[in-house]
């Protein structure tokens, strides 16, 4: 008994701040979401003071609303396009290209890519806006080539935000893959080369299986980061035009803080959390199988 008490004294003080903060700001809010999503809580008025339990009403409204369906679909497209394919693919390519290159090249390319990554989302959005809008740089270049320009943020808004997110986020995947590639034993790839495998087959059949765990972990991290992207889209398009870039975080924010429908907004947050959980489960399962 005394020994147990001594043990608690050893671990509790150093853990306490973390446990309190995580309990208060992560576990608590998740639990609150799961409760409030079943109420008609509002930002102001009677429903703000005495919220009523409304059962599944929020979710019924949610799944019959064309808005939410469209938003969910947009979010999935945004995540697949900008994170799973875009950042992941571009990061891997850059890491492979820079493998065993001169220090100078790696230093310069690496620094530039990383500079885009540390850029605050708001600043990144401004930079991309300046690049894609009607008087933007892309149209100047197209004009110089004799091609007609257009307001890309209006004609291809989803493409614009996907591009912006790839531009901004590729560095993380690149850094992760650079580290992973440097740990692939070189005798493996050399043996495959001796056996006559070209660079693509060497990568696919030798390198990729070795770094598979890193790929899956990276995919999980960037997927979850991308699910929550708010500022980039908010500043670039504010969810428009015609709601064509209104992903779940923007819809949630609009419902909760613009229209004051806290219960309904929270139900959207629960859908967002569930989407994150589904992606995570898929990734975790793929790690467990075919080991």
């Amino acid at each position, binding site marked *: 008994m005394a020994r147990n008490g001594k043990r608690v004294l050893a671990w509790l003080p150093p853990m306490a701040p973390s446990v309190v903060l995580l309990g208060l700001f992560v576990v608590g809010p998740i639990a609150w979401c799961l409760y409030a999503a079943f109420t008609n809580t509002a930002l102001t008025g009677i429903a703000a003071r005495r919220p009523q339990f409304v059962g599944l009403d929020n979710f019924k409204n949610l799944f019959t609303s064309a808005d939410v369906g469209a938003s969910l679909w947009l979010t999935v497209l945004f995540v697949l396009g900008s994170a799973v394919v875009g950042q992941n693919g571009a990061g891997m390519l850059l890491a492979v290209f820079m493998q065993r290159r001169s220090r100078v090249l790696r230093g310069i390319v690496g620094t530039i890519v990383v500079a885009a990554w540390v850029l605050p989302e708001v600043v990144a959005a401004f930079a991309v806006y300046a690049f894609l809008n009607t008087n933007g*740089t892309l149209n100047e270049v197209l004009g110089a080539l004799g091609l007609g320009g257009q307001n890309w943020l209006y004609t291809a808004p989803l493409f614009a935000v996907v591009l912006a997110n790839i531009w901004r986020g590729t560095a993380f995947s690149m850094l992760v893959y650079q580290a992973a590639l440097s740990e692939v034993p070189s005798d493996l790839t050399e043996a495959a080369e001796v056996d006559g495998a070209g660079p693509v087959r060497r990568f696919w059949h030798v390198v990729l299986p070795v770094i598979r765990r890193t790929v899956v972990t990276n995919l999980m991290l960037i997927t979850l*980061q991308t699910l929550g992207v708010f500022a980039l889209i908010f500043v670039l398009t504010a969810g428009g035009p015609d709601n064509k870039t209104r992903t779940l975080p923007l819809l949630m924010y609009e419902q909760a803080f613009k229209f004051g429908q806290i219960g309904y907004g929270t139900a959207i947050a629960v859908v967002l959390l569930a989407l994150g959980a589904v992606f995570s489960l898929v990734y975790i399962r793929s790690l467990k199988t075919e080991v």
Partner: protein
Amino acid sequence: MKRPGRTLAEVLAVLAAAAIAFPLYWMVLSALKPESEVISSDPKPWTLQPSLDNFTRVLTTQGFGRYFLNSVLVALVVVALSLLISFLAATALTRLRFRGRTLLLVMLLVAQMVPVEALTIPMFFLMRSVGDAVPAFGLNQLGGLVLVHLAFSLPFAIWMLRGFVAAVPVELEEAATLDGASRQRFLWQVLFPLVAPGLVATSVLSFIHAWNDFLFAKTFIISASENQTLPLALLAFFKPDQNDWGAIMAGSTLMTVPVLVFFVLVQRRLVSGLAGAVKG
């Protein structure tokens, strides 16, 4: 002999870097251009008369300095507290065996998997209640922002530091104890300096998160405009009707410099830290 494949890879890498660098270049360029050139319908990719007018305009008007200081304050306090708290937690989780340890580890992993933006609504009400009890940590207060960022920086920081603490041999602690060092002394004078690379890497990530945050500042700082942070102040420049691009880009450049400096200083250590964390 150099094979064509290698050269192609190098060219592609350089092209990609150039494409990524271009908007950054354009940002700094627009910030340095005199006003007449920024609004010109035929913008040139260079300027012959660089001027700091845009910067002085940003720095002297609209309380930019105040917002800048707010952002610096929040980010630095978050980094300092996050370092201390995550170091203690990582050490306890690595060096001590206790009931509930596995549960805490699972909690940390799950916390990393939550898109924190989804928690904005409950956080808003939480901050409001906290503010009723302790005004300095409630809505409209920088203290509230600090708490939120601190909490969300912890899971990754603890996770990352665990690897660094585990890499320090246990024998070292035994030796220190034999030499008569107390546990506290070992913790702060031996272990803390030894995991410095990990501490540096985690502090960069917490700094970037706190410095770049937009959503929480927008949601929690509603009426106290004197406590607004930089991202929101920048957005105040960004008005569709009167696009003052010179000022927007000068402000953006000013906001980017601190993160970039912080990052370049510690880049190498961050990479090794990240690699360990993602492999873990």
